């Protein structure tokens, strides 16, 4: 993929969404579904590894950029996700006049809920990128969800625990053993 295309697609996805993972649906669609420049596995691994890095969660896109185009892709991705937040400078100026207008509040809320609905679907699709028996994958996902809900386990600890559990248990999965040949 040409570097400029990578930069533009990530910039566009981030400009049209809020939060660190709001751009996930658009990135899946542009890179995986439409262009085949990355796989669902790349996406899911970037999301997971990104959680291990310090700083905002949204930097998972940097890992994704690395998977698509090496260090150049990672740096382009870092630039692409750093620019949209500058819009806050304009938002802050306009804020005092419109902040309590119901249409503005409603628009932001509606867009956020659309992101939530789509993200649930996209995340579910990422499950197909996982290896191992289905019941084990579902169990991993469920345990991770519950541990997150308990709010007692720090995210990096959870990711590392999942990696260890995957190495110990997931190795017997079909895809993992096939790659050993």
């Amino acid at each position, binding site marked *: 993929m040409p570097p400029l295309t990578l930069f533009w697609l990530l910039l566009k996805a981030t400009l049209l969404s809020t939060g660190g993972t709001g751009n996930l649906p658009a990135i899946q669609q542009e890179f995986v579904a439409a262009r085949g420049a990355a796989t669902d596995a790349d996406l*899911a691994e970037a999301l*997971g590894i990104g959680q291990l*890095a310090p700083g905002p969660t949204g930097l998972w896109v940097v890992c994704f950029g690395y998977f698509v185009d090496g260090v150049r892709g990672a*740096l382009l991705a870092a630039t692409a996700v750093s620019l949209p937040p*500058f819009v806050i400078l304009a938002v802050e100026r306009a804020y*005092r006049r419109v902040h309590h207008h119901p249409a503005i509040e409603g628009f932001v809320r509606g867009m956020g809920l659309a992101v939530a609905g789509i993200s649930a679907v996209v995340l579910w699709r990422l499950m197909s990128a996982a290896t191992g028996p289905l019941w084990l994958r579902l169990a991993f996902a469920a345990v*991770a969800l519950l541990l997150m809900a308990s709010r007692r386990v720090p995210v990096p600890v959870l990711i590392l625990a999942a990696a260890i559990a995957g190495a110990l248990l997931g190795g017997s999965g079909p895809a993992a053993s096939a790659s050993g040949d």
Partner: protein
Amino acid sequence: MAWHPDVPHNRSMDAAPAPVVPVAPEPATPRPLRLSRLFAVWFAIGLQSFGGGSATGELIRRVAVDRERWVSEAEFARELTLVQLAPGMNLLALTLLLGRRVRGLKGGVTALVGLLVPSVTVAILLAALARGLGDNEAVRAALSGGVVPATVGMGLYGTFRTGRGLLDGLKGVTLVLTLLIAVASGLLAALYWGRLPVFMILFGGGVVGAVLSVAFDPKRFGEAGEADVA
């Protein structure tokens, strides 16, 4: 950018640095800080804030409110809400605003770069490590058999919390109709993935949200309207 003339102000509006509309009382003026020191403070945040967005947000709060006193607790909360309206990572927008308080736009950019340099470097190293060891069967299994499904579970939980936060304060019919935005968007994505551009679903969700919010605005209905809806 025409200010409302409710409050008297001087003629050179562009040069007026203070907000014309009075907002929450400002804390003590931020201590003047060299750009290099500002960079160092944010570099330290970027290096230490393991644990995702909430950990980073807490660390920023501790530094900006408790230690450096750039903002009051209330101002910090207001800016934290405000940054939800900007595209992309909220914490980067927050970093820009906090840095700008100290040293203007230059300070905002310095803070942002300071935060990003260590975080991005570590992210690249981790990605390279994962790829470099990618041929190792145990690493493959750890990633695709463990990290990927756990990420899905964690992501679903995060999505649930975001959605719940957005629905906060809504009741009755409004709550159900607004919740349907998420359900409809998910269905559209599931049925027409790859054929329907994502931003069209997002924009549609925004428009429906705006219409619902105006139609069910409690202020317009007054107390009688609220009783009707509930």
